[in-house]
């Protein structure tokens, strides 16, 4: 086998850089329009609803599992040792129409279900300087 690979590193654009910088500081924050108050993800330059300006706002990190998969084969380097690993799309409490992708940690795969409550944790991302949000199942 080849040497152990790191998971993919994000390559932010100018529009997404503030989101990643916020995570790097340990804060999970999402974009919100300063005019119409709509939340957005992924980050954009301006509001897609009203063209207003956007600001990053810290969110509670609470959310629910909208859907999830269990990966039995890797689609990216760095995950061989985690197989089979779960990834969910999480609907944040403040903006449940949005879907944030992230791994579910600390749960047996059988205990993961749609609708379960989760809490985001910002953790170091192996192989670089970035941090990513992962999600832990919590009691409702």
């Amino acid at each position, binding site marked *: 086998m080849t040497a152990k690979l790191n998971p993919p590193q994000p390559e*932010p654009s100018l529009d997404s850089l503030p989101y990643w910088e916020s995570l790097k500081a340990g804060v999970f924050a999402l974009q919100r329009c300063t005019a119409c108050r709509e939340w957005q993800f992924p980050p954009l330059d301006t509001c897609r609803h009203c063209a207003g300006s956007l600001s990053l706002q810290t969110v509670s990190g609470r959310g629910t599992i909208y859907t999830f998969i269990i990966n039995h084969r890797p689609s990216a380097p760095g995950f061989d040792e985690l197989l*089979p690993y779960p990834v969910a*799309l999480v609907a944040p409490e403040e903006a449940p129409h949005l879907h944030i992708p992230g791994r579910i940690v600390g749960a047996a795969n059988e205990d993961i279900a749609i609708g379960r409550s989760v809490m985001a944790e910002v953790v170091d991302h192996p192989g670089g300087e970035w941090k990513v949000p992962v999600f832990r199942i919590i009691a409702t």
Partner: protein
Amino acid sequence: MAANDPMVVGIGRSPYSRNSGRTTASLAVEACRSAIADAGMDLSEVDGIVEFNVGDSVGSLNVAYALGLPGLRMPVDIQNGGNVVTLAVALACMAVQSGKCKSVLVYRSLNSRSGQRIGTYTGNLNIGGDDQYGAPHGYMAPGQWFAMYCRRYMHEFGTTYEDLGRIAITTRAHAGKNEAAIMREPITMEQYLASRWIYDPFRLFDCALEADGACAILVTSRARARNLQQVPVQMLDEETFMGRHPDSWEDMGHLFSARAAPPLWERTGLKPADMDFACIYDCFTFTTIGVIEDYGFCEKGGAGEYYASGKATYGGDCVINPHGGLLSEAYIHGMNHHFEAVLQLRHQAGERQVKDAKVALVTAGTGPFGGGLIYARA
């Protein structure tokens, strides 16, 4: 009936394989030449090309050059995947209808098995664009995105693993009568359930059969079609709906098809019961389920029963994917569905001919983006 109605008059393809040992240019040229020869058209009558790719294919200018087209007037290269197949055909038809072009080739050429393979990597990756949020979690392949949809769909409508299996089994049975299909051995529910997990809820047999090959169709006007050698097949109408990255779609219980189907049925005055067969873009078993339910072949959550009761096969309501689809014929990115639809409507499908086939639905895409069109034997 108008002289400029768009008609498919030729179809062509290369062999479908797991390792072509050829360039996408070579495959595309074979498929296009074959479509032109099938029609019996002179090269000087072909002045447009539409193709789509995801950075894995040969462009229209190179194919026109290699074919020796004397007068290319409309090269269109669409940077997109299986979601644009029916739109690519519609663009060709619009060019013919408007008089912009005399005749237009539509092709897809790819080495999706031996070449650039989805979800494979050899070293560390930096990922920008839409996948920068998922990729750090090991989440960046289309099979993963649509497994997310499938899980949600199962939650909302009670679709089961066995329902997915029924799609795989019936589609494979159809491929058994298609000499061009790569996978022709029948499978049982037991074998389906025992096939290895890829991205749960998807098993191996839920996923398209990555393959090498090219497929092309040739479109011209009703007036020009009169001088050609095949029974023409009319493209009646097409409707596409496009969302962005699959993760951004708010309601995964309804696919693009929930938006694309109603206008198509309304404008054509047709309904699912009028379809003699359908070629449904089946990159995953789940795609077929979501799409036929949205198009109204059965109720939401009813596709498993639709297949179980034999409605999706010969002797039922509507034969779905008589060629074996992307699941069992080959993943030629949905272009092969158009080849099959035209072959069936010309009554040239041999052993797997759908009796008296006159009208068919062909779809493209899944999740938030795709389209559908209707072909009719002229």
